C-alpha cells in the first residue's frame, strides 16, 4: 500500500468519524439538521471506503465485489447499532451486521464458522438480547437513549484506534511472501484436495485413529474435503482440551447467570398472608416427596 493510499484512507476515516459524531443521539436544538448532515457525510465516507477498496486493494470478479458489498453493509449497520435511539432497532441492525459478516466468512470458504455465526449469534444471542429488552424497556424513548455521553471523546478514540490499525497495515510484515493470496483465489482453497490448507485423506477417518494423509500420487483422485470436516478435525485434535474447557465455561456461565438474576425474597418483607402461602407451598412439596409413588 502506497503512502498516498494511506492518506486517502485517513481522509475517509476522518469523514466517517465526523459523520458518526453528528449522527450520535443528541438533545441539542439543531440535532435533526446535524443528523441529516452526518448521514450525508457518513454515506460519502462509505462510498469512499468502497472506492478505496476497489482502487487500492483491488476488486475484480464476483468474490471481491461481494466483499465490498458485505463490508460496506456491515459497517453501515454497525453505525446504526450505536446510533439508533431505540434499543430494539439496535438489535435488529446488529442482526444485519451478523448476516454481513456471515457473507464475509463464506467468501473465504469458512462455511462452518459462517453457519455458527448465523445460528449462535443471529439466533441465540440476539434472541436473548430481545428478551431482556422486552423485560426491561420502558415505553417510548428514554432520555438516556436520546443523549450520548461524551460523543466527541468517544468518536476520537474510535478514530485513533482504526487509524493506528491502518498505519500498521502499511508496515511490511515478515510473512509478506504469502500476500499474493486473494479472495477469489482462496474461495475454493479448502475444497481443493491438492491445497496445503488441509491434509487430504485417502478414505476419511478410520475406526482406530486419525485418518492417514493421502499419498501424493492419490491427491488428484481424493474426494474434496469440506470446511466443516477440516475444522472439526482441528477442533477435535489440536484444540480438544480447549473444547472441553469451553464446555465447562459455558456451564459456569449458565449457573452464574441464574445465580445473578435470581429473585431473592426477604422473609421479613412478606405480609403474614404471603408467609402463610409460602409455608403451605413448602408443606405441599414435603408431602409430595413423602407420598408413595402409586
Amino acid at each position: 500500500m502506497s503512502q498516498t493510499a494511506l492518506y486517502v484512507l485517513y481522509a475517509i476515516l476522518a469523514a466517517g468519524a465526523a459523520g458518526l459524531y453528528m449522527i450520535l443521539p443528541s438533545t441539542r436544538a439543531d440535532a435533526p439538521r446535524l443528523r441529516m448532515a452526518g448521514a450525508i457525510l457518513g454515506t460519502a465516507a462509505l462510498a469512499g471506503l468502497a472506492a478505496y477498496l476497489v482502487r487500492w486493494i483491488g476488486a475484480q470478479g464476483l468474490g471481491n465485489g461481494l466483499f465490498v458489498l458485505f463490508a460496506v453493509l456491515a459497517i453501515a449497520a454497525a453505525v446504526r447499532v450505536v446510533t439508533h435511539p431505540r434499543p430494539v432497532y439496535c438489535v435488529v441492525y446488529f442482526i444485519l451486521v451478523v448476516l454481513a459478516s456471515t457473507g464475509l466468512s463464506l467468501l473465504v470458504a469458512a462455511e462452518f464458522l459462517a453457519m455458527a455465526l448465523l445460528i449462535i449469534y443471529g439466533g441465540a444471542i440476539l434472541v436473548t438480547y430481545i428478551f431482556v429488552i422486552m423485560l426491561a424497556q420502558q415505553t417510548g424513548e428514554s432520555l438516556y437513549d436520546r443523549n450520548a455521553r461524551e460523543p466527541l471523546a468517544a468518536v476520537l478514540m474510535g478514530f485513533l484506534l482504526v487509524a493506528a490499525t491502518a498505519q500498521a497495515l502499511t508496515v511490511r510484515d515478515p510473512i509478506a511472501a504469502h500476500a499474493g493470496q486473494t479472495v477469489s483465489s482462496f474461495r475454493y482453497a479448502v475444497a481443493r484436495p491438492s491445497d496445503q490448507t488441509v491434509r487430504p485423506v485417502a478414505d476419511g477417518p478410520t475406526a482406530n485413529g486419525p485418518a492417514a494423509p493421502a499419498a501424493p500420487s492419490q491427491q488428484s483422485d481424493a474426494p474434496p474435503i469440506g470446511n466443516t470436516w477440516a475444522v472439526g478435525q482441528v477442533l477435535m485434535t489440536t484444540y480438544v482440551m480447549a473444547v472441553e474447557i469451553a464446555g465447562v465455561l459455558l456451564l459456569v456461565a449458565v449457573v452464574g447467570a441464574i445465580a445473578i438474576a435470581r429473585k431473592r425474597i426477604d422473609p421479613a418483607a412478606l405480609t403474614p398472608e404471603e408467609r402463610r402461602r409460602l409455608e403451605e407451598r413448602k408443606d405441599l412439596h414435603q408431602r409430595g416427596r413423602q407420598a408413595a409413588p402409586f
Partner: protein
Amino acid sequence: MDLDVTHAYVLTGGLLFAIGVTGFLARRNLIVMFLATELMFQGVILNLVGFGVRRGDLHGQAFALFLLVIAAVEAGVALGLVVLLFRRKGTLDADAWATMKG
C-alpha cells in the same frame, strides 16, 4: 490486481471494533453498551478470519469459534447482570450506577 484478503479483512474488522468502542463509550443504555461489545467481538472474529487466510490454515477459524463461545458466555452473564441492575433501580441508565465516580 486482486483484493489482498488480510488487508481488507483486518481493515473491516478494525472498523467494526472501533465503532463498537465508540458505541460503548458514547451510549448510556446498558443493553446497547453490551451490544457494542458484541460489535467488537464481530470485528475480532473478522480479524481472525483474515489472519487465518494469511496463514493458510484453519487455526484462525478455530479461534473464532472459541470467541463465539466467549461471546455467548458474556451475553448470558451480562444480561443477567442487566436484569439485576434494572430490578434494583428501575432504569437502564448506566449513570444511575455512577456512585463510585465521586
